[in-house]
């Protein structure tokens, strides 16, 4: 008997997509994650634009992680120009980026993901019975946004970032005024890890190949080498030699694969698995207390990985703010030259790669942008393939809820990858 279950859209993700699972108990025929976000053609509209415009134009790819786009674009152009960024500017960038990690992670954890664990349709319903937790989450998110405002001018599409640094460095007093909120945030984030450690996590283990950046001494945010749990270790400019983007007929996002190896996973779970030894003392201590160890290959525990990263971000932010001296000058002057520049940074959702071919007059001839969600599409489908036999035995409502939850584990940003998910389970 042929059965088909349809949901018109998958909620609590950023953007528009659809999901189909076809088969019967014991036999999964097909799993496809379809991304239907209307294409916006950023790579094409960057052609003929000035190289200095790339950070502001690419920020508009994603309202949730504009800083990630700005930073990857800056890194690419700075690599092209052969410019070294002074430590004080790099520190201010890292502080801005910590703000985005906090705001984006808290939005995902509390507004999108946690309602699944606690059984609510959304944060507002959840707050009626878990008021303290909801308010704490919102306040942490608010602090992340305040950091972006203090440094970038606004939280969505900051205006103060430019190639080589910043238009104007914020005053020392304005930055240091954040200390009390950041100290509160650090403690709130630690409590959150402990609260999340007490949640019930369903069993699921996967054999992901994890991919992230790795910095020489710190937890990866801005730069480093690209490494994987399968032994990959390459420079950012080698990305396109090692990774390949493929188009599939049912999606407006391109799928990435590691050449010769297949699907892989980037994002918080990948970062923490590959860089556990780079966590600062506060994050390491709370992870240990919460019983979080690596390797961790249960995608549902990505919630916990994200929460530990929020501790890391607050902890770094406190130190960066205390040591903050406005960089002088606020940016390094740069001249365009003909050639190719590649840059990668760790967006909240994972590795974000940019490559630009620039003409001698500074106009962009070609651009390539690989966002984390398109890299994770294959692994998200694989997760559903692993879950499918379980899903096909559940009633429709439970199966839909479970499939959506599994997708949310990876915090897909479908706007980045190219709109929302509509879920269809067809039972043969």
């Amino acid at each position: 008997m042929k059965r088909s279950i349809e949901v018109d859209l998958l909620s609590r993700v950023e953007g528009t997509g659809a999901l189909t699972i076809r088969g019967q108990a014991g036999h999964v025929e097909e799993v496809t994650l379809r991304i239907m976000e209307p294409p916006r053609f950023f790579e094409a509209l960057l052609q003929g634009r000035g190289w200095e415009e790339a950070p502001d134009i690419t920020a508009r790819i994603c309202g949730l992680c504009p800083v990630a786009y700005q930073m990857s674009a800056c890194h690419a152009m700075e690599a092209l120009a052969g410019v070294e960024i002074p430590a004080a500017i790099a520190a201010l960038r890292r502080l801005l980026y910590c703000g985005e990690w906090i705001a984006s992670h808290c939005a995902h954890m509390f507004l999108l993901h946690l309602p699944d664990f606690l059984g609510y349709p959304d944060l507002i319903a959840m707050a009626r019975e878990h008021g303290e937790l909801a308010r704490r989450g919102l306040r942490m998110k608010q602090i992340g946004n305040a950091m972006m405002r203090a440094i970038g001018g606004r939280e969505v599409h900051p205006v103060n970032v430019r190639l080589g640094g910043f238009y104007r460095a914020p005053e020392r007093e304005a930055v240091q005024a954040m200390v009390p909120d950041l100290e509160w945030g650090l403690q709130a984030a630690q409590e959150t890890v402990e609260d999340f450690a007490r949640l019930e996590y369903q069993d699921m283990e996967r054999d992901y190949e994890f991919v992230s950046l790795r910095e020489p001494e710190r937890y990866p945010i801005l730069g480093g080498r690209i490494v994987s749990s399968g032994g990959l270790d390459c420079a950012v400019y080698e990305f396109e030699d090692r990774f390949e983007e493929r188009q599939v007929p049912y999606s407006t996002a391109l799928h990435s694969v590691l050449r010769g190896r297949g699907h892989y996973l980037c994002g918080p779970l990948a970062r923490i698995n590959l860089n556990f030894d780079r966590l600062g003392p506060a994050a390491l201590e709370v992870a240990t207390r919460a019983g979080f160890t690596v390797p961790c290959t249960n995608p549902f525990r990505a919630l916990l990985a994200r929460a530990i990263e929020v501790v890391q971000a607050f902890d770094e932010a406190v130190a960066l703010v205390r040591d903050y001296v406005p960089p002088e000058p606020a940016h390094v002057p740069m001249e365009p030259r003909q050639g190719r520049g590649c840059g990668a940074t760790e967006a909240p959702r994972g590795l974000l790669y940019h490559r630009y071919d620039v003409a001698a007059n500074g106009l962009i001839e070609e651009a390539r942008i690989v966002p984390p969600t398109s890299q994770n599409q294959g692994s998200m489908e694989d997760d559903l393939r692993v879950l499918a036999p379980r899903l096909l035995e559940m009633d429709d409502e439970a199966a839909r809820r479970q499939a959506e939850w599994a997708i949310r584990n990876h915090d897909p940003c479908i706007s980045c990858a190219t709109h929302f998910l509509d879920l269809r389970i067809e039972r043969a």
Partner: protein
Amino acid sequence: MKVAVWKFASCDGCQLMLLDCERELLTLGEVVEFAHFPEASSARVEGPYDLSIVEGSITTAHDAEQIQRVRRESRFLVAIGACATAGGIQALRNFRDVQGFLEAVYAEPAYIDTLAASAPISEHVSVDLELRGCPIAREPLLETIRAALRGCLPRLATDSVCMECKRRGTVCVMVAHGTPCLGPVTHVGCGALCPSVGRGCYGCFGPKETVNVAALEGHLEAAPEAIRRLFLNFNAGAPAFAQAARDEAKHRG
């Protein structure tokens, strides 16, 4: 009051401003019913809706049909952000050949459904209020919801970033440093952020009402090509900015 939030081609940043009202969000959730807000809730209630907040531009045949349905089901329809009010950065395609765009991004362009132009919501249906910005500002959004609760829509400021900048007491970047700045022709609303960091306004809020762009163009100290690109941004689809870009292209000649 039943509120719906809809998304078309966009970056999610404008609807995120609603979730970025951290202080107000839980109270808001008690005084209005978010009947359709897929980014924030899996609960969904059928229309009609008292207020529809619409983000994004119309770029596909499917979305062109969908916006008609949203209009039919909504008492107030408010378009938010540069994508919904001017077509967004993706309206740059309107100046170029879409097939070429498709081929630059996708290996198999035949799979992709897209319209030739990226259009603001008002080009498809009547819109009751537009909130400008890339992204929109938080306060006008809250003011819109407050007003809608009383059965009306707010009157919002329509003057320029330049006025806002003067009120802030920022030294003029154009007069003092010759930095090209769209402040005199750009709609108020951001708080005059760019001049406050020593940068020229790059037009996130689009052209203000009754604007004389040509009068500004003669004062911008930059090459025509750079000025053209300054207008061809997030509000490239707004008629006044599109015209300015065409004028500059002629100068370049």
